[in-house]
């Protein structure tokens, strides 16, 4: 197959999807090439889900500007995309005089970055916001929020697709060349795409994409952050985010508790450099450490409250011996006109994504004519949140209208058959088990699918004709089953 279009985007993480969605407002044809069978299988589904306020970044950097701008854009975006978002604020807590000094410099830095509403609080004021919180002073940033990172990534992609963007899932880019006018991009499936504009948003693999063009000045050092997920039983114990005042030279913001919009709490992330850009293993050393810190941070935690572990990889530009942070690289390359290159989009990449989308659009506009589409649809159909979050009367109405709402398939998260069917029939036509999981939340609760996976398998068999070999966990090489019982 040979496909010609105006813009090719490599990588369907939150960044690639935000760019795709932004460009889908205009009369341009866009192909997004993603090596995995679903969007957001990289860093974009494996992070803290925090909308950072922007206090941590040096004024004048892209990280400072784009995070503050992205944070501010997120509210309207989420309302359009029907995504839950909660601005729950954050306390950055100092334990000693040094810490207090750090708070003041963070406040100054934040104000220089135009972060709204920053305040230094004393113990009494801190207790009002989060009863029981330790520390002597805190910097309060009301614009810090939480969001479901894969929910946002998927929603951006679905909305982009609804506006004409073509997503090629399972299409890993292996080779790129440039002829006089176009980039020619080949995939592992043997297909070829051509476009005058090429965008590299391949996250942890962005250095490899650069290399395909012969650009060798970048190198990504994956830095793993492990997390533990806590049972929803503890929902409500945190009303705001509480972070330790950062230490100098650290590669992350320190281990802390983060609420998710779906009612769990995350402990993490750790920070450890690894060799491979897809080494998502969890380790017993870190899990033990996270549990210990979890018990200290949350005394009511019991050993049965840990329901799962996961890890994500930060796309660091500095080698381990240097550590720390570098600014995002977002550049329109002069040596390859039309090549828009995004490298090292680590935290706050999620927060910044909508603003990165705008910035990339400006760059694209220099190469192709961005004419407004008559019929750009900014809203995603459906409603915010899950069936089980609705008031009882509303549930009764919906079940009366559609009995599939009455059948609860995932008992832990109380996800209904209707929601599972919607997830199976998703607009991006992903057909993996993890795809159903990320869209419906089934299998994400305390029994981790022990109960509902067999029932989802049955639905796929009965209503969609799946055979045992059709079930994939998330990639071609991850079949769930070995065949029929003999």
């Amino acid at each position, binding site marked *: 197959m040979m496909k010609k279009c105006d813009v090719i985007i490599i990588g369907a993480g939150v960044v690639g999807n935000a760019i795709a969605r932004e460009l889908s407002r205009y009369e341009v044809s866009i192909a997004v090439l993603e090596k995995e069978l679903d969007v957001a299988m990289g860093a974009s589904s494996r992070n803290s889900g925090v909308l950072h306020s922007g206090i941590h970044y040096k004024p004048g950097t892209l990280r400072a500007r784009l995070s503050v701008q992205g944070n501010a854009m997120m509210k309207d975006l989420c309302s359009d995309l029907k995504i839950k978002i909660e601005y729950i604020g954050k306390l950055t807590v100092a334990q000693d005089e040094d810490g207090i000094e750090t708070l003041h410099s963070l406040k100054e830095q934040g104000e220089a970055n135009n972060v709204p509403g920053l305040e230094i609080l004393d113990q009494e004021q801190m207790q009002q916001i989060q009863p029981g919180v330790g520390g002597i002073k805190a910097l309060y940033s009301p614009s810090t929020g939480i969001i479901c990172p894969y929910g946002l990534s998927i929603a951006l992609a679905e909305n982009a697709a609804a506006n004409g963007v073509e997503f090629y899932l399972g299409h890993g880019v292996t080779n790129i060349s440039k002829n006089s006018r176009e980039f020619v991009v080949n995939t592992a499936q043997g297909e070829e795409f051509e476009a005058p504009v090429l965008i590299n948003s391949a996250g942890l693999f962005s250095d490899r994409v650069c290399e395909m063009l012969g650009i060798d000045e970048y190198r990504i050092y994956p830095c793993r952050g492990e997390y533990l997920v806590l049972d929803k039983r503890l929902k409500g114990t945190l009303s705001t985010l509480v972070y330790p005042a950062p230490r100098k030279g650290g590669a992350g913001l320190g281990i802390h508790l983060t609420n998710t919009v779906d009612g769990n709490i995350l402990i993490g992330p750790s920070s450890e450099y690894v060799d491979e850009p897809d080494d998502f293993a*969890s380790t017993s050393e870190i*899990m033990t450490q996270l549990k210990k810190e979890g018990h200290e941070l949350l005394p009511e935690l019991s050993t*049965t409250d840990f329901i799962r572990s996961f890890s994500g990889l930060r796309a660091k530009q500095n080698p381990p011996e240097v550590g720390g942070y570098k600014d995002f690289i977002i550049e329109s390359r002069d040596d390859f006109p039309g090549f828009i290159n995004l490298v090292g989009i680590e935290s706050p990449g999620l927060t910044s994504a909508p603003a990165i989308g705008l910035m990339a659009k400006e760059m694209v506009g220099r190469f192709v004519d961005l004419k407004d589409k008559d019929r750009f649809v900014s809203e995603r159909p459906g409603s915010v949140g899950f069936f*089980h979050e609705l008031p009882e009367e509303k549930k009764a109405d919906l079940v009366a209208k559609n009995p599939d709402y009455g059948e609860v398939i995932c008992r*832990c998260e109380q996800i209904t058959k209707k929601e599972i069917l919607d997830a199976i029939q998703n607009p991006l036509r992903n057909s993996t088990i993890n795809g159903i999981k990320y869209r419906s939340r089934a299998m994400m609760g305390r029994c981790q699918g022990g109960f509902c996976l067999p029932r989802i398998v049955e639905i796929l068999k009965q209503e969609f004709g799946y055979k045992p070999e059709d079930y994939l966990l998330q990639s071609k090489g991850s079949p*769930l089953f070995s*065949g029929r019982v003999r």
Partner: protein
Amino acid sequence: MQNIKHDLVVIGGGPAGLAAAISARRNGCRDVLLIERAKTYGGILNQCIHDGFGLHRFGETLTGPEYAQLYIDEFKAQRLEAMLGTIVLSMDSGRNLYVSSRNGFKKIEAGAVILSMGCRERTAGAISLPGTRPAGIYTAGAAQNFINLQNIMVGKQAVIMGSGDIGLIMARRMTLEGAKVESVFEILPYASGLPRNIQQCLNDYDIPLHLSTSVINLHGKERLTGVTVAEVNEGLMPVPGTERYVPCDTLLLSVGLIPENELSRGANVVMESRTGGAQVDDTLMTSLPGVFSCGNVLHVHDLVDHVSEEAELAGRFAVEYLDGGIQPRESYIQIEPGEGVRYVLPQKVSGARDFTLSLRVAAPSRNQSVWVKDSEKKLARKKMLRLHPAEMVRIKVKANKLGSAKRLCVSVK
């Protein structure tokens, strides 16, 4: 929204719920409603197609479905009412339930409730298993469901982690279906499943059981390619140098069952951390008046016969409660696990009637006795040739022996 009332609502249609409902009817309750989220009765027994059920009650060994059928037939003969395919989503302390099914979302007010929701399996996440997260990792019960109910084979080369009964039974089942079961690895120095299952499911098929050994790492990015196992010390920590790699494409976890008490917690029923179930008195009533608990949701049973027996008591006492015969008391005799006992149930008794204690010991032993004592006073004793944590012990205590006891201690000596 439809709002209905029933005298007694039984939540769960497994062996516990069925026996409780039947018993309530036999004891005179006319208005019993059983609610089951599956489309069929029988609970976990439906996927237990092996035999070994009912030896105590019926003197013969039945398969799980056969055992369940006896109760289903009786349930129907008694013309008991049920809502199948209906899940109870929440319950409050006033016994108001919200239920959902294809027929609608309803509120039910219950005069009394029997909790018999069974249990679920512990997962890889719950035991914080390190490593990657590829396909091929299943709880033994989920694998049992795929193989026995859906005719789907989960893998070709399996390792089983944990020696719980379901894991042992699945070791045999996988072997019979042509898979190679490499080994069963148990972290404790003894097996947690029943001795007869060790014999019939492992020894008879030459499947090795490695005690004091655990799976410490998972490998494979897409499908499981192998596990690392290691011997563990007394503190259950891996002993360096004993690690070895076992190739496999499937890992089945049989690492414990957790009573499914989310509904109970939602209604603020007082729970017991040792059992994972509710605290109950000698009528099996929980801390909430009119709410009773029995079967695996109360504590994990090894024999279904005991489940049925316990559930019959719950049914009987629920009817007594509805008739005004049971009221929460001001004081109870507390029952506590002593030396060598992991847990004992009920946690408190009225002293008004004879009762049976259910308990599990902490470690295997031979030629010991289980004692029930009021400080030094011996109230009951059961001599046991063999004691094993996998086998629940039941011991009867007579009310007329209690005297002025305030606190009983149950121990192994």
